């Protein structure tokens, strides 16, 4: 197999993800293809904005000491971002499904997520599409294998990687952060409805992650958004 020929890894609703040898390295290529249902001007604007937001937030995460893939090329013309391939990884979604809450490391993962989200928000980054599929667990030292050993967790040898920042934005308001948490809660409820404490554990870690505090306003906005959702009048 020719390694420089892109291999399709994932076909998403708005992007195709390929793996390919590029500049001598295994590389992820994320292509935001054209959506024919929307006006071409709107389509180009949305794609440009998402590529820009994604690259910008990925970089800013690095300043916040949140692991994200390295960026190799941001190509607006080809609607593609070229970035680092992390050989060994598992999505939080698959981890929860495979190992479940029975796993002693379930809490460890939830706490890591809470702490990471707090860092994200403390750096004024709002992810915009927080789901358990957009978080990867990787070993601190990358190896070439593509399997993941849950035992690494016990030794603290893993890192959480945040991906899919297309809907993210920077310099977010407190309300935006509240909505970000709400989006995650809803996503977890629909994906992992059998683990109700998952979000609660994440939220607890989120609250306590930074001893400097300053999170009360975000939490109260989150609760406000949540209440609004539940109580919306919904006139037929």
């Amino acid at each position: 197999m020719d390694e420089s020929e892109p291999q399709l890894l994932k076909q998403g609703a708005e992007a195709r993800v390929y793996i390919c040898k590029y500049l001598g390295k295994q590389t992820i290529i994320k292509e935001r293809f054209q959506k024919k249902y929307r006006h071409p001007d709107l389509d180009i604007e949305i794609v440009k904005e998402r590529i820009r937001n994604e690259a910008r937030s990925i970089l800013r995460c690095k300043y916040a000491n949140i692991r994200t893939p390295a960026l190799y090329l941001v190509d607006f013309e080809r609607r593609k971002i070229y970035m680092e391939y992390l050989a060994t990884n598992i999505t939080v979604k698959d981890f929860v499904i495979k190992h479940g809450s029975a796993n002693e490391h379930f809490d460890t993962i939830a706490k890591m997520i809470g702490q990471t989200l707090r860092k994200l928000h403390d750096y004024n980054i709002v992810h915009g599409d927080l789901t358990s599929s957009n978080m990867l667990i990787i070993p601190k030292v990358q190896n070439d294998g593509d399997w993941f050993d849950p035992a690494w967790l016990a030794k603290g040898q893993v890192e959480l990687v945040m991906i899919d920042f297309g809907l993210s934005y920077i310099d977010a308001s407190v309300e935006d952060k509240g909505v970000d948490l709400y989006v995650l809660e809803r996503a977890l409820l629909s994906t992992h409805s059998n683990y109700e404490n998952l979000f609660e554990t994440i939220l607890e870690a989120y609250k306590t992650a930074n001893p400097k505090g300053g999170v009360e306003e975000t939490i109260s906005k989150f609760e406000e958004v949540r209440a609004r959702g539940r109580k919306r009048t919904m006139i037929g």
Partner: protein
Amino acid sequence: MVIAIGFEGSANKLGVGIVRDGQIVANCRRTYITPPGQGFLPRETAEHHQQNIHAVLREALDQSGITPDMIDVVCYTKGPGMGAPLMVCAIVARTCAKLWKKPILGVNHCIGHIEMGRLITNAYNPTVLYVSGGNTQIIAYDRNKYRIFGETIDIAVGNCLDRFARVLKMSNEPSPGYNIEQAAKRGTKYFPLPYCVKGMDVSFSGILSFMEDRIDDLLQKFTPDDLCYSLQETVFAMLVEITERAMAHCGSDEVLIVGGVGCNVRLQEMMGVMCKERDARVFATDERFCIDNGVMIAWAGALAHSSGTKMDFSESTITQRYRTDDVVITWRD
């Protein structure tokens, strides 16, 4: 064989419908239409329903040839909706149930739309986009609930369109949304508007205030038709995007569009293009069933009734807030 009658009046439409074993035998409706630039208010809407409900009920009975003694269950909209108009229908339904000595059943309005859509289109297990003046939700069925995967975090898409029609002082006859749709067909110039998707949720209030704030300037450079066109292209693109995301999430290959905005042909068309690209099918209905009606309440009530759901007369109240995912679906696996 179940014969059910349904009363619907949660907003400005008043409907009475009768179903016999999944066959629609009556679907009668009146709409309260307000002057241009005005929305409908609870008190006036309730008055409209009061003045018309007897005539609509008579029409439904006459049209169907069903007599009260043949009816198995009397259904009405329990919520969500505006309190006073909901109350009008609830009172009439309770009176009928007592007079005719029939069981009563309160129905969730949103569930009514979904079940009606499934009945008419034969969609099996669709991802549902429910879009109306008061609601914008992406719904999918999972373990005895219609679960909400995405929704508006502020105003409903129909509300956004209606209010924009008011800004342009368009007629509310037959409905503001219909008039926007016709105007949009004539629009040619696209004006970029804020596009706001957060995960599977959307927000429309920013678009509305963006246009409200600039309306005089905008009308210098664009015709009202262009603005209606740009608005539709933007908000519908948002809806199609979150629908697709929910479909990907659930691994679904069917979409059902329900609710008043669901009869917009441009929305159906855009959804169709998206579905074609992913080998999925789109199901939609026309204004007879999309727009609030009594049949949807009768049909959802008939389903619940057949699966053994009962409501005590003392519980036959109304509630302005009633979430789709609060209802336990007893008639699906």
